[in-house]
């Protein structure tokens, strides 16, 4: 086989190995919804709008909407800020479904 042909086979095998590495990085599992929030409940009770709450905790209104609908899970810092805003504990604000998890 020619030199170019040898190099092609070598490169092909290299790429095959690389492809396995890349595919290994793909995560096909879908996370389960185990964290529920009571942000909307506390917000309505306090008579605060989404815009006002977003402004108070330095996030966009879209983030508040996503948090309330459960599409996005807040970081610890944001959870703390939200809990502080409503003067409640993080456990009261976020309901963690322990039964589904091995803890």
């Amino acid at each position, binding site marked *: 086989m020619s030199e*170019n042909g040898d*190099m*092609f086979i070598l*490169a*092909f095998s*290299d*790429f095959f190995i*690389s*492809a396995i*590495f*890349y595919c290994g*990085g*793909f995560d096909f599992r879908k996370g389960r919804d185990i964290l529920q929030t009571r942000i909307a409940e506390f917000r309505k009770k306090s008579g605060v709008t989404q815009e006002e709450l*977003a*402004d108070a905790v*330095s*996030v*966009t209104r*879209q*983030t508040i909407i*996503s948090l309330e609908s459960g599409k*996005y899970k*807040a*970081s610890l*810092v*944001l959870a703390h800020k939200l809990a502080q805003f409503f003067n409640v504990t993080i456990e009261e604000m976020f309901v963690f479904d322990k039964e589904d998890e091995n803890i």
Partner: protein
Amino acid sequence: MKRGIFCQTTATTNEEYRKELKKKNGWLIFAMLGAAAIAAVILFVELRGIGEISDYMLGVYCGACTGISIACLILLVKNLLLLNNEEKLKQSRIENYDERNAEIRSKAMLAAIRVMLICCMVTALIGGLYDAYLIKIMMFVTYVFLFSYLIADTYYRKKM
């Protein structure tokens, strides 16, 4: 509103964000002048006949440098307008500080990297049948990615 891949900020106040934007403006001016200088040098070399540059490469250099200069100028003007408007500055800071937006950005980046790597592999495997040089280039790109990833991974493991 200023949004983009490199717009993320850690500034929690308008003052901090203002300082960050001013620093970015410095880099934008540097990039704009640098690109303009490269284009000028290439044109000078071509017009004076000092060196030989193909028409294609001349077009590539001049086009890329002009594009970079114009993009930097637009961003600079946008930043200056933001710096003069307190309300818009706050909106921009929140938009870029927002953790959901940061997560969206990193997920979008990850998806783009995956697409790019797949394209690299497909180009190398199919293009390699016609020109072996393509495989060499794509392999180089892939290995640069892999080594950069390993170095960054080691760095962040030590840092966090």
